[in-house]
């Protein structure tokens, strides 16, 4: 094995995705890694494939009243409601910190109207240090916008087109699993100019306190994430990679390198780590190391040879 280690080519884990060259396919999922600085004590941010920051809206949003989270078996529900400092404060207060690192920064954006998506994109496109935009059309926890756009192909396409027209940065559209056919939405945003899709956002769920006979979350329902959703996410990634030509970024319950590898083998060009950051703040570092170990062990020279290598003959 020692000999193998020495044959590791620099950039063995590198992936090219919608015009971005990432050091490795491991990104952080929006809303689970703050603005990067929260995890700087535990992770070398330079090692990440990309940091996807907490969803940004044009103006600051206070978010939903508490309680906002509830742990469930093998997962958690959240109804944070896109609390964020607003895009201008992000650029002034958070982006300078991220610029110190040699890491790809993807800004996740949210709007209540199509025009708000455009205006957030406009502001971010002018900012130094933002390398791509991830369009959130899939938040289940806000009354206006969010999933209202993500659940309908026409609306999803309209938001995508508006953002696409406003920026030269790569545009990634984040999809909701709370639809009848996710491939329909994926194809609609591809046709509207998306450079990639990321999926899945959380699955809508609910939990009840039987002693008080009240929902555990003040918002009543929330988004389910964590290991519980992984098989659902993987199935949807499988469906979408066969339906679109643009890269697919896999998200949903990825906690270990083995989980990440399942998505990559299935055809995801990259993955995002979400809830696992909460459980173990250095999860991303261990996942990157684990993918590299796997590549060495299986003598795979580059990610291209791994991504989408799933064998289904005879299935």
């Amino acid at each position, binding site marked *: 094995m020692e000999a193998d280690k020495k044959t590791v080519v620099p950039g063995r884990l590198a992936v090219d995705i919608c015009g971005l060259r990432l050091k490795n396919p491991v990104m952080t999922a929006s*809303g*689970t*890694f*703050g603005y990067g600085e*929260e*995890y700087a*004590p*535990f992770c070398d941010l330079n090692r990440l494939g990309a940091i996807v920051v*907490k969803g940004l809206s044009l103006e600051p949003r*206070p*978010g*939903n*009243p*508490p*309680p*906002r*989270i*509830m*742990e469930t*078996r*093998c*997962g*958690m529900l*959240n109804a*944070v409601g896109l*609390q964020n400092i607003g895009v201008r404060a992000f650029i002034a207060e958070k982006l300078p910190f991220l610029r110190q690192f040699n890491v790809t920064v993807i800004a996740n954006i949210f709007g209540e109207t199509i025009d708000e998506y455009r205006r957030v994109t406009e502001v971010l496109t002018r900012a130094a240090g933002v390398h791509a935009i991830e369009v959130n059309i899939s938040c289940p926890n806000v009354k206006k916008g969010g999933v209202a756009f993500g659940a309908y192909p026409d609306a999803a396409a309209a938001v995508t087109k508006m953002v696409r027209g406003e920026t030269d940065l790569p545009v990634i559209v984040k999809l909701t699993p709370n639809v009848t056919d996710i491939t329909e939405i994926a194809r609609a945003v591809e046709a509207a100019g998306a450079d990639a899709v990321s999926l899945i956002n959380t699955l809508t769920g609910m939990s009840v306190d039987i002693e008080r006979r009240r929902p555990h979350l003040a918002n009543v329902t929330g988004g389910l994430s*964590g*290991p519980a959703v992984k098989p659902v996410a993987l199935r949807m990634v499988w469906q979408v990679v066969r339906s679109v030509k643009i890269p697919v970024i896999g998200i949903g319950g990825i906690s270990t390198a083995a989980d990440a590898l399942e998505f990559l083998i299935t055809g995801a060009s990259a993955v995002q780590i979400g*809830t696992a*950051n*909460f*459980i*173990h*703040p*250095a999860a991303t570092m261990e996942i990157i190391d684990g993918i590299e170990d796997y590549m060495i062990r299986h003598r795979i020279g580059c990610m291209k040879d791994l991504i989408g290598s799933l064998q289904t003959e005879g299935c």
Partner: protein
Amino acid sequence: MAEKPSIAIGQVMENRGVAPGHFLLTIRLPLSFATPIPGQFVMIRDPDRGEPLLPRPISVYGFQREKGHAILNLLCRIVGRGTSLFSRLNRGSTLTVLGPLGRGFTIDSDVRQLLLVAGGVGAAPLAFLLQEGSLLKPDSGKRQVTAYLGAGTAELLTGLNRFQDFCDLRTATDDGSCGYHGTVTEFLAVDLGEYDAKSTLILACGPGAMIRSLALLLRDTRIRCQVSLEERMACGVGACLGCAVAIKEGEGRTGYRRVCHDGPVFDIGEILWDPPV
């Protein structure tokens, strides 16, 4: 100034019940683990279990350094699945310990009278404050420390020795089995007039109802008060925004702060109560 938090593997040296539903964990940590400030907390998780998924936030009850390692004491109450499992950990078990986290108590130099007010297991961070001692050292002159500890019954009053040894201790129990018969805030209300509002600081930790009644008691006084809040958390480091507490912002607007990162210690006057106090 708080030192940098880290992720450490700890080893359970002792785990014993101290009162019904309460246990005291003694965990050995590497020396590199930063010294907590009173009021700070750690997130602990059993690395050998996938469930419960999330680590649990526990206030620091004690911390010392000795030959080659650090010793962390956590006084816990069993509230759910996570703490129930921790209560059954054997000596030698490993735990992942993330911390120290959050913003602890601060004591201004002009404070002459310190009142520690705790309900139940809320005594833990205040007991650590007494043990640690650095915050108590007056910058000039003498500083009085009085503790008001409340619990349901006498046997649920925890950490008493620590308080008896270091300060003037006054207890209250709901059933009258020890000290004042009633809640700790009712007891404090009886004495409150004796303290000089300008030079007194209250540091409090306890259940939501206790903090709320304290807010009501202090509403029309000018006594400074910091409270350590408890909220469900996922990450403990300020990322998940799960542990939001409503606070007053300008122009009557509501804002949310993170208990884990902006707290857990807040000025009681900042907190927005629903319904209002």
